[in-house]
């Protein structure tokens, strides 16, 4: 996802980014820039999304019907596009979250055999 300087950044798979976006939108609709900031903040700066790659991910989610968008005004009275979770997306978030937890648990068990 990102190249070069921030070697600390952990590379994210495409599907994972989708999951993070869904989670970020649970609380409130956000615009693209704010989603990036939210993910960085929530992960305590470990995950910094390369900003350009956000948009294809958002469109993929729109295509699948998990999020939708609407025009609105942001805090500083600017016209912006806000992305919102759909009911279908909410359901999908639950499914993807449990899949991820299973995956993470399995990998953890392999890496640190009890």
């Amino acid at each position, binding site marked *: 996802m990102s190249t070069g300087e921030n070697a600390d950044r952990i590379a994210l798979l495409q599907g994972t980014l989708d999951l993070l976006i869904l989670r970020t939108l649970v609380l409130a609709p956000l615009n693209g820039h704010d989603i990036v900031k939210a993910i960085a903040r929530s992960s305590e700066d470990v995950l910094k999304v390369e*900003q*350009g790659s956000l*948009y*294809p991910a958002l469109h993929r989610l729109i*295509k699948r019907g998990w999020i939708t968008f609407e025009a609105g005004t942001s805090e500083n009275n*600017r016209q912006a596009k806000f992305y919102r979770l759909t009911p279908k997306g909410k359901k999908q978030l639950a499914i993807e979250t449990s899949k991820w937890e299973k995956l993470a648990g399995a990998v953890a068990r392999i890496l640190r055999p009890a």
Partner: protein
Amino acid sequence: MMRAPFSGLDAEIRDHIARETQDNIDRGMAPDEARRAAWRAFGSVASTQEDVRSVWIPVRLEQLAQDGRYALRSVRRSPFFSAVVIATLAIGIGMTTAVFGVFNAILLRPLAYPDAGRLVAIASERPDLPGQFLANNEEFWHWKEQSASLDALFAYNIYNQTMNAGAEPSRMQVAVVSDDFWKVSEPHLLAGRLPDEGERNVVLLSERLYARTFDSDPRVLGRVVTLDRTPVTVIGILPDRFRLELPIQRRQDFRGGETEIFRSFAIEHPNDRFRQLLSVVGRVKPGVTVDQARAELSAVHERTRNRQSESRLVMLPLQEQMVRDVRQALNVLLMGAALLLLAVCTNVADLLLARVTARSKEMAVRVSVGAGRSRVLRQLLFESVAYCGLGGAAAFVIARSGLAAIIRVYPDAAPRLAEASLDRTVMAVSLAVLAAVALFVGVMPALSLWRANVHDILKEGGRTASAAPRRLRLRRTLVGAQLALAVALLCGAGLLLKSFWAMNAHPAGFNPEQVLALRLNFTEGLPGPAKVDMADRVLARIKALPGVTAASVNSHGDLLTWIDVVGAPEVPPGERRPFFMNQTSPDFAVVMGLRTVSGRWLADHEPSPVVVLNETAARMQFGREDPIGRRIRGAAIGAPQVRRDPNPAPTEATVVGVVADLRYTKLDEEPLPEFFLPYEHARSIYRMNLIVRTSGDPLAVAPSVRAALGESETRERPFDVTTLDAALSESIAPRRFNLVVLETFAVTALLLALVGIYAVMSYSITQREQELGIRAALGAGPRQVMVMLIRQEMSVALAGIVIGLVAAFALTRAMRSLLFAVTPDDPLTFVAAAGLLAIAALLACFAPARRGALVNPLQALRAQ
């Protein structure tokens, strides 16, 4: 919904960057630095845009659109080349489509009648009247009454009759049909009603006639008009789309055209006086096959026919009978069109191949920057699709105008031809052909590029690319193929030309030049003797005109009657042989150039009835015996009747001579048995043809002949005024049609082949410049080089020609029935075709070879 996320993307990205910039400023960066950092953090905007786009538009589709645009661009880039390719494709596909349109209209499209598959044409074939697909009224009634496998049977005939509806009399084509015709055709009338069973002397008019002559006035229903002076009542109007789709016997007096009047018709029950000759159509019962019906009806015919008539029942599906004569011709034409199409394909493939060579460097570059070999090939295919698409559109225009021209110029060349159009079937086939052509011409250049080594092409600058030898071989093969196709077409066309020549030059037994022919109806209801007087007067007046050498009347081909030989065993009425009776005058022999075989011709004044037989009649009636001096007897012979006598007593006449057979209409028909009788000894005169031999141009004398007729108080105006020559030419119109179409194909193929040879030769010379330069440097003289080049190129050409001859030999067999006095493997034609092409190929080679011979060695070696 799909458009919206897309279109706002640019604004959204700008907004995103603006926010990030603002955040950076808030963090303490300078505005410029903030902006730059924001852009950097975003990453590649272009790839973001592309990625977003590819979420919505599948990549493949995008690429295809790109390929399409690229293809159109390269077509536009070389306009002259593109024009040539498109024109070639348009001609080939357009011509093929037009021919297929004709083929479809005549052979493939079912007849317009409901249940047309159940309709059959029925006739009784007699060995003494060959080539006539007819039955007589006695047979008709037997079949109608006794057949169990037919649920309808009707008879019809087509005549030209004069209609008098108050204003000008006009010549109309009339179909007389018996009752069951309406049961079979089930028309939806525009107005009026169908005839009742047994109703006579009623007519139905076509919509066009209704509009033209009667101003679409519905009061015409119930009105009485006359047809050949017989009153008939108009009872109905038929819609325009109702057509008479029935086989029409070609007779000399028959002029093709639209049938606009349908008249009801009585089929006489058998009697002693005469036989009606009819065209008969039946409909088999549902569930019965044609074979079953034929077997059943043959049994009926066997039971009921006259013992000595040796006639045989013939039954064919109606459509087959209609198109029987032209089926062969159409097959041949379609084959010719296919050959032309192949020639066009190879020609265009060759052209595209040539262009690939010129662009091979460009191709190599594109492959090497990662376009992928298959992508480049796909683009080539797209180019050929683009060409074919444009060519196809132009072809549509050519096909449409070609078809219209064919119908306008040769409407009578074949039945149903006038209805040929580019309907759904034709368009579908045409599109399929177009797709196949696109594939073929696209694959050729792609093939040649397939194994090309990218590095070599780039290194050598593309001109002498490593694939060149393969490409040259491919192009040579294509040219050879074109030559073969051209030879095959030329042979076919040459055979037709030769038989056409033979038909025109054939002695035909008479001299059609300088003979004026007109038709006259003696239908005023004059008593017989008065008609004879009138004929005498008319002839005398005409013979006295300047420019007239001889004048005669005759009734050739119209009248069929019986004669018995006096002293021979009595033949029952139903089994007498019919002969064509020609009521004529002495000058007939002079006008027609008739040759007397034995005895003498008719004299100016014959005190007692005499007849002259033609060879066929003499042979049929008397076999090997000498007929001169024998007496014959017939009901049509005798003194002219004052009033129509229903039962005339047969009169005797002496046979005084035998003349050579005359062939009047189609020069390849069997001559009919005919006897000649002076008109003053004919019991009733019905219709006469007036023929006048002139010393100069026949048509120049026509006005004075008309004037002479006007003076003779005949209220009948002459019609069908023409020269005999023209009438004959018209009768072979179908052949002319075949000839013209096939010739066009052959000439086109020839031109294509020549262009191909020239192009390939030029190309190969260019490829070999280095080699030729070396040869020149080593002392080879220009002439030597030229001879070598020509020899190499001609060997391919000759190979192509030989293959073409072999193909022609195999294919021209299919043309056998179209030829006249020529065999399908006529050596003269084949040699001439091969020779013509060889010479043409030689000429095409000449200029490029000369150029090659004059290659400057220094220049050639330097241009590396």
